[in-house]
């Protein structure tokens, strides 16, 4: 089993697949709604000028997620560029 990282650790340009969501309640629902289910591929597109939030390419759409929320999204395996 390789190392697990969180969404907020993904650097711009890197991709990885989602392993699990630690978020609960309404945030969990919202993340599922935008398609962040297991094995979904995400790509970090960049960060906002102030460093947070970051933009991610998820199932054909671009979604901005804050680092604090990204910490609850676990990614499987190593990220790749």
């Amino acid at each position: 089993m390789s190392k697990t990282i969180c969404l907020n650790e993904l650097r711009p340009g890197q991709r990885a697949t989602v392993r699990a969501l630690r978020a609960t309640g309404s945030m969990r629902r919202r993340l599922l709604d935008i398609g962040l289910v297991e094995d979904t591929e995400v790509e970090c597109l960049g960060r906002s000028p102030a460093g947070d939030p970051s933009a991610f390419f998820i199932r054909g759409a671009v979604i901005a997620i804050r680092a604090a929320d990204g910490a609850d999204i676990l990614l499987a395996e190593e990220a790749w560029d």
Partner: protein
Amino acid sequence: MGLTRDATGAGAVDGGLALRRESDADRVIALAGNPNVGKSTVFNGLTGLNQHTGNWPGKTVASAQGRCGTYLVVDLPGTYSLLAHSAEEEVARDFLCFGGADATVVVCDATCLERSLNLALQVRELTGRVVVCVNLMDEAGRKGVRVDLDALSRGLGVPVVGTVARKKRELQKLVRAVDGVLAAPAAPPLRIRYPGAVEEALAVLEPVAAEKAAGRLPARWLALRLLDEDGGLRAAAEDYLGGELRTDENWNAAIARARAILRERGISSDRLKDLIVSSLVLAAEELANDCVRCEHTGYSDADRAIDRVLTGKWVGYPVMLALLAFLFWLTIVGANFLSDLLAVPLFRVQALLTALFTALHAPDWLHGVLVLGAYRVLAWVVSVMLPPMAIFFPLFTLLEDAGYLPRVAYNLDRPFQKCAACGKQALTMAMGFGCNAAGVVGCRIIDSPRERLLAILTNSMVPCNGRFPTLLTLLTVFFVTGAQGPLASLQAALLLTGVIVLGVGMTFAATRLLSATVLKGAPSSFTLELPPYRRPQLGRVLIRSVLDRTIFVLGRAAAVAAPAGALLWLAANVEIGGMSLLAHGATVLDPFARLLGLDGVILMAFLFGFPANEIVLPIIVMAYTAQGTLASLGGMAELHGLLLANGWTAVTALCTVFFCLLHWPCSTTLLTIRKETGSWGWTALACVLPAAFGMALCSLTACAARLIGLL
């Protein structure tokens, strides 16, 4: 198309979701879809109405209704799902389930079909009378995305129509498809495959649910929702089906058995919710794989390049300011030209009217009220206030159409987060530029009630379209010095940008203050969709928006400015005790106004301007000229002379600019706040807060000026 006349001012206030049928034969068509898939554009195309559209998710916060032949079309708020996690989703779900829509049109985004399909599948689980409208086909084509509409139609079991709603093409085909769906028997609800244990539990529950629903709701859907322990829905369903489920023995036995099956397989209530959503997402993925062909996948290189400029680490903020200054510059150059063009004939008409009144031997007071009062203020609003409004608004709309506003929210989220607020507040702030009432309604896009209140209470700290001609004029007259032509316009644009930045800074300060006092709390979680950039519909936006603005301003000028002018002339000329009413009022207000670096007349103008901020400056001019110093007023030089003659200094102008930026919101905005918050208390705070900030800023400025001997 951006903010339209219908979406600003009093039109911004939501009409609610009560159906407005004209006869019982009317069929109700619900429009459902994800945020920002062009749902409002489809709605406008079908109904010929003018609902606000723009390239950002969440701008349709109120549901709209309109007619299309014998159909009553209801535009539901944009949602990603019907699993009811938010107020909008609940509205949409309850309307589709129990609201009696005869058919549903699900609007999908061809460029991002997979995600749209999630909602389409959920609607299909619920009803068979569905037409799927795959919108933005042209955009998808340009991106190399091909959608196989026949395969999609087979997969969903309902008609699918591809549209380019922005061009109103093929909307007729959509209407015909709806006709067809209503004429034919409803297709059976779609069966999504759920994981084994869930299916087993459903197998137990479904027959009992079928008995209860008696054809009024799909059994499988009802069983699934009730298995999911959705309390709100159970109550609504019981209401709709007219019977208590909780007290029904058969039902209770079935649900206990179904839940036991889930428990045995180790599926908790949360796990069940996840399984349901994942199954839908995966079903959407599978369906999309079958009917979408992409030449290349991923985020487009062009959009990436634009992002690097608009949201780049070093250039993001400077570009934002530069864009704003550029818009102001264009506005100023255009407005100067238009103002000169309008002022000459308008004041020539005044001279003609005066001549006419004299020839008819009309009494002086009649000439005063109608010509020097009503007409002159009207002419002022039209010649000085209208041009900047009619130019800036469409330009801003272009930015909105292009998809820039969500990027502003993305850029500004961090500072808002520091104030324990939400980046979407930047979107509502931007709406406030157009109209604060519209901005306040727009605050519904913010999910957290605390953060929504923060945005509502601070919205009027960015100047609306009605206020910035005043800012612009005062800045130009008093602070653009020594420069000529384009350079002068540039100077004015930079000054105005500075004032806006100050307003935004005050918004941050007020937000911070509120979240440290009455609205304590941590920033909630946040997701913001950044839509692809679109080329704005240049010609249409400009023509529509200029016309809209012009009609809106002219309407208000006639309704508010002209009567105010007539009243004001009376106030300036009816004397009691050797002093006009106006002079009395100004004298009473004067001592307090002086503390703020203003004078009694200015403060009174702001009070009179409560119904419409664009009449503040005309009132000031009127009040000064009514005392008989000037017969007519054309260009900026004369205005400068008039204000100087009435004791204005640069400090007075600066304080007036500050007070214009920060004072009580207009009456329409306050009523909207009352409506949105449901509380007079919050409304009062929304009134007092910006006024307190403005008074503090003005009195500090006046004090500082006195200290260094400028006042």
